[in-house]
């Protein structure tokens, strides 16, 4: 093999390395200006609109969380439109909310507008008025009343069963003191304790 041929290979390697190293050192960059079309876009779900500031607006999200989607999913508008991407109702309701926000309506005004259009069922929780108070208050009232009765009975019994003076203990079996165990019971207790220890 001639030295010229060796030199040629070295030159070739140098040239190759010179071409490869910059490529390896370079971080992959992508064209952010355009997006290639999908091979089968119809199988990638419903087409989506670009996200605007409205979709991440905390005020709008807060309002949408208080509104029920009308598709029958039981979810609020925000959750439905960001979860069930086949739903056509939630995006429409979102657009209605955005339209009302653009009119500088307050949250309560927006909710009132929705109630006027769809009825009370559009709200994720019953409004606190009239019969709906029963929904909010009844569990607390029931727990409060039963708890108070239990507490009252306990306190009453507690007073009745409070440790009495030694002289009266014999008349009150529930208030026996430890020292008053009969000899038989004490023996039995000891035997049981020893057995448990084994």
């Amino acid at each position: 093999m001639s030295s010229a041929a060796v030199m040629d290979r070295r030159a070739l390697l140098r040239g190759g390395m010179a071409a490869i190293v910059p490529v390896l050192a370079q971080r992959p960059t992508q064209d952010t200006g355009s997006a290639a079309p999908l091979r089968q876009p119809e199988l990638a779900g419903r087409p989506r609109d670009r996200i605007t500031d409205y979709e991440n607006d905390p005020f709008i999200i807060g309002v949408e969380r208080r509104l029920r989607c009308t598709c029958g999913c039981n979810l609020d508008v925000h959750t439905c439109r960001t979860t069930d991407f086949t739903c056509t109702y939630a995006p429409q309701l979102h657009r209605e909310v955005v339209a009302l926000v653009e009119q500088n309506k307050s949250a309560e005004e927006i909710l009132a507008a929705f109630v006027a259009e769809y009825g009370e069922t559009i709200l994720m929780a019953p409004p606190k008025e009239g019969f709906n108070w029963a929904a909010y208050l009844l569990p607390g009232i029931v727990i409060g009343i039963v708890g108070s009765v239990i507490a009252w009975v306990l306190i009453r019994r507690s007073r009745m069963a409070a440790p009495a003076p030694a002289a009266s203990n014999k008349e009150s079996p529930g208030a026996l003191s430890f020292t008053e165990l009969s000899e038989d019971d004490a023996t039995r207790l000891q035997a049981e304790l020893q057995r448990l220890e084994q």
Partner: protein
Amino acid sequence: MTILGQLALWLALLLGAWGTVVGILGGRRGDPALIASARRTTYVLAGVISVAAISLVTALLKSDFNVAYVASYTSRNLPIAYKLSAFYGGQAGSLLFWALVLSLFAAAAQWLTPRRYSYLMPYVAAVTSFVILFFVMVTVFAANPFERLPFTPVDGRGLNPQLQNPGMVIHPPMLYLGYISITIPFAFAVAALLSKRLDMGWLHAIRKWTLISWLFLSVGITLGMWWAYVELGWGGYWAWDPVENASFLPWLTMTAFLHSVMIQEKRGMLKRWNMTLISLSFLLSIFGTFITRSGVISSVHSFTQSSVGYFFLAFLGLSIVGVVVLIWTRASLLKTEAHLDSALSREASFFFNNLLLVGMAFSVLWGTLFPIISEVVRGTQVTVGPPFFNQVNIPIGLGLLALTGIGPLIAWRRASPRNLRRQFAAPLVLAALVALALIALGLRDFYAGMAFTIGAFVVGAIVQEFIRGTGARHRLHGENPALAFVRLVGRNRRRYGGYIVHIGIVIYFVAFAGQAFKTEIEASLKPGESVDLRSPYGHTYTFTHLGVSQYEALNRFVSAASLEITRDGKPFGRPLTSEKRQHVDSFGRPTFEPSTEAAIRYTLREDIYVVYAGSVEGTEEAVYRITINPLVTWVWIGCMVLVFGGAVTLWPGGTVGARGLRRPTESGYQARLPAEMPIEREGAEVLS
């Protein structure tokens, strides 16, 4: 095979009726032949219903599309695991599955129950046979999985994509096991009422059953949460959906029962209440199935709706009447043997624990039914969603969490001020330190702060119990601390297993509190574009869209969108890929609407939850919803701890409690212990 299945169902119908009649007659007359017949009927029922189940499974696996059920819930290209899960994926199959599991449980109850409770067994056979009869009847007359079509489709419709998830393979059976196994303790309770043998026997006989069904329910509910989290794509795991509520209701009453039954065992109190609770649990499990199956209340979980609701309503009504009559007529036999001595006693804390558990069950039931009530009363429909349930139930839940710590710290019968100071000091100090630390760290969410603080109190109380128990054994027996700890737990598994379960519950609460700090963002990104999101822990995550790829896989066409993630500028694991799945049949025809598969990076502190919502104008420009979910992993860890605690409690062996319960004379001591005795609790621990 389906003819065999049909025949088996009809035979099961006859056997169910036979078992009910001979069970009752055998129990009343004490006729050994009838009693033996009732027992054997439960075994034969299990065998016959198994034949029906095997017939359906065979039809599913063989893709016999002439069977309407098989054509409705499977397709040729459905993976085998989902063909099997289609058994309970549809209404008719799930009812047969219910009958199958109940028949196996009924047979196991007859087989495993010790002979000393033989006086209850014919009635137990009657009750289980009756419930099986009901389910078989619904299966035969309203939702028959063996119904054939007049023609044979070339392929089936396939299984709902949301059900094609490993979580859905195991979640429904677990939940069903929980629901169904409640029937066994209920059957013993009814047997005790029918036989008028209302001593401690029936309670001892069902102890393990109640705990097992409670554990199955707990695991089933948690698996349901996991399925909702990974499959439904909304980034949460509990939405107070009617079906979720329906599973939660019997869990609450069973939890109340597991606590109140201890008072009956130790003090002979709350007999009527315990009978009511176990009956209520059973009735609520039927109510849950009624809600799921009837579609009376709309729910995302109601995959199956039909007229079977009427059957369930009738059965529910009949059961309620039967239980009320039985408890009413046996009320005199259910009198309490003792009264509470003090408001400061463990019994009292259990009273309040029961009050809150049943109160929460009431509030959940009330909220679930309120739309119907509102429509009846006002003629106006309302929605009762998460805002309502959170508002009403979070304070109750926090009260319950506090009682989880308070209960074990208070002595039985009566606690003295000295006892209270000694027991509460350390846990309260720990809770106060945690509260101060949280405030110093800038936590301002009241309920989350309360959950963390009360959680610290409960953990402090439990750890103190372990330390004191271990210390007492170490001092009195000279055992080294490790051995003392093991023996402490080993010799009173019920108590210390219960404490471990309580730690699991604390973990759940802490995880739930994490939801208060959830952050999310929506973004439409072209390949190479990024979006930042700051997590509650102060990290800044940068998500860079890599592109969308499309390919065919198994029974679906997949569009996969990937995000590269960095945390505070450093790479954070491999890219996350969320998918849109268009399921197709074996001819490549789309079967359902496209479904979404979330991509989740689990960490102990926070999960990153990415959902590919779709593409803009049919290009690789993808719309994402990105959520940072703090502490979610701890929900699953809490469940594991809970199951571990339950396993410790259930582990066979000679616990002091179990030995004591076999000798009624020993439990008499507990009823006759002097008022001051329980204050010296270390002595009691050492005995354990």
